[in-house]
């Protein structure tokens, strides 16, 4: 028996407004960004109201309180991931986290710098944010970029994993859950292959950390990135987690105030721990907001949330299968998949699908989902994507299915 989570929707003020056609909002675009509960909005605002000061600077009381709040957020996020707080780097977004990491890998002074004879492995189902930084790293260093392919049902093809992940492989950058298919790749197997050749595993956890329990120790990956705004938190805050021993060996990529140990006119040395990666005054209020989101989700229970989304996904998949002209893109069963469902409607472009759904107050994502190479491989111009979070319920799924039927009527699919 799973917990009744329906009461949580009330915590999200956005659902008190109406949208196009005077309809209530049915928000099925959490894969792009999640809505925010009042406690998060309040935590961010409260920081500005009562604690605002530049952290790690100044001898005044506000600076102390602001620093405590910011470092408290770091500890809280670390606990949430099963990590140490010295391993949590705050960034502005997951995209920045991955770029920062890729740049640090190309700093020749890094103890684990990428060199021209190294190989970097990605997969065909990566979001642009976990593809282009590695393309660019390969370009800067002369390293070779290779990738694991996908199978027609939207899973990773591991048949040639032994060739792709080989003794030259330095980095394996992979998504924890596809933002297009909802597929959860077999991380264990990939970590095993990477460890066998001494490669580092970088996990893009944007679609996983906000939706199910993620423990970095259990996963045994080396680096992990996610954004706060998909986790009910504010925009402008992201996380890069890395094993402490590896962060020690990496050189920073962004330089300036607050990240130094000492500075002369000729050069500088870096602060220890995550601080050396956090130049400038950080996004403090946003870190505090993220911390409130972590508390909120912890109180709900990540396993309860995962079960909730699992049920909705199952309901949506079985409903879509019954609509003529609709094809699910990605796994059609519940094995190793999360609450992201992509589909196409024969003869109707995803934008037109999204436009009709919008008329009924239903917000979905349409297009290539920042996974252009994947769309080309699938010979699709794009898909319509529905994705869930805590505030969704079974009647949202029913409304979506009814509206998709109306799309096929409106554009006279197969008529």
């Amino acid at each position: 028996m799973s917990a009744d989570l329906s009461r949580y929707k009330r915590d999200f003020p956005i659902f008190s407004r109406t949208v196009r056609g005077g309809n209530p909002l049915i928000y099925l675009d959490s894969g792009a960004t999640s809505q925010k509960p009042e406690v998060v909005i309040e935590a961010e605002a409260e920081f500005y109201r009562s604690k605002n000061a530049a952290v790690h600077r100044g001898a005044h009381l506000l600076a102390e309180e602001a620093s405590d709040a910011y470092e408290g957020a770091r500890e809280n996020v670390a606990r949430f991931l099963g990590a140490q707080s010295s391993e949590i780097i705050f960034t502005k977004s997951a995209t920045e986290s991955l770029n920062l990491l890729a740049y640090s890998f190309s700093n020749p002074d890094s103890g684990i710098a990428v060199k021209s004879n190294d190989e970097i492995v990605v997969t065909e189902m990566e979001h642009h944010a976990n593809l282009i930084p590695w393309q660019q790293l390969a370009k800067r260093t002369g390293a070779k970029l290779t990738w694991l392919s996908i199978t027609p049902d939207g899973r990773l093809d591991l048949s040639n994993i032994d060739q792709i992940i080989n003794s030259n492989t330095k980095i394996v950058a992979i998504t924890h859950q596809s933002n297009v298919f909802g597929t959860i790749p077999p991380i264990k197997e990939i970590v095993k292959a990477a460890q066998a050749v001494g490669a580092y595993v970088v996990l893009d956890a944007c679609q996983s950390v906000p939706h199910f329990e993620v423990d970095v120790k259990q996963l045994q990956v080396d680096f992990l990135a996610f954004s706060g705004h998909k986790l009910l938190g504010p925009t402008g805050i992201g996380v890069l987690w890395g094993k402490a021993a590896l962060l020690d060996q990496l050189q920073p990529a962004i330089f300036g105030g607050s990240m130094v140990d000492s500075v002369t006119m000729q050069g500088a040395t870096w602060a220890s721990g995550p601080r050396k990666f956090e130049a400038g005054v950080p996004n403090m209020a946003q870190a505090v907001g993220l911390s409130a989101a972590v508390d909120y989700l912890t109180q709900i229970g990540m396993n309860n949330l995962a079960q909730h989304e699992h049920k909705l996904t199952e309901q949506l998949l079985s409903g879509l299968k019954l609509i003529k002209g609709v094809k699910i893109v990605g796994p059609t069963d519940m094995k190793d998949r999360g609450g992201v469902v992509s589909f196409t409607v024969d003869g109707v472009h995803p934008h037109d699908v999204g436009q009709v759904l919008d008329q009924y107050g239903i917000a979905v994502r349409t297009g290539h989902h920042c996974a252009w190479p994947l769309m080309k491989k699938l010979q699709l111009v794009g898909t319509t994507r529905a994705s869930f979070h805590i505030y969704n319920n079974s009647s949202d799924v029913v409304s979506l299915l009814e509206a998709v039927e109306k799309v096929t009527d409106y554009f006279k699919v197969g008529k």
Partner: protein
Amino acid sequence: MELDSLYQQVILDHYRTPSNKGLSAFKDIQVHHNNPSCGDEVTLNLTMKDGVVKEITWDGVGCSISMASASVMSELLLGKNYQDSMKILDAFVELMQSKGKSSGDEQLLEDGVAFAGVSKFPARIKCALLGWMAFKDAATQVMA
């Protein structure tokens, strides 16, 4: 319903049976335009003689608005001289930017006025303009 102001019958008809779709073998110039935020693409072949549009053919993938608009554009601008084609194009761009306040000059824009409703949907304006901008690029290059 608000949706019907966007998807006029004329638009749906052009989407299902587009005009001048399929690239010609001969052309003065070929241009390729895309919309990186949504992935819509148009390739356009243009032939002009003495400053007059002799042939417009195009191919592409995209939503009903972008494909229908390219189709309407290719019908409307065929046979026009460069100055007139730019006058029509400017009128269409102005209509798209009218935020639903203009119904368009039917004498100038003909089937193009069916897109007036698009101007109320900011996210779709760039769809409607894709083929037109490809034409502008091509014609300007030919005339240069």
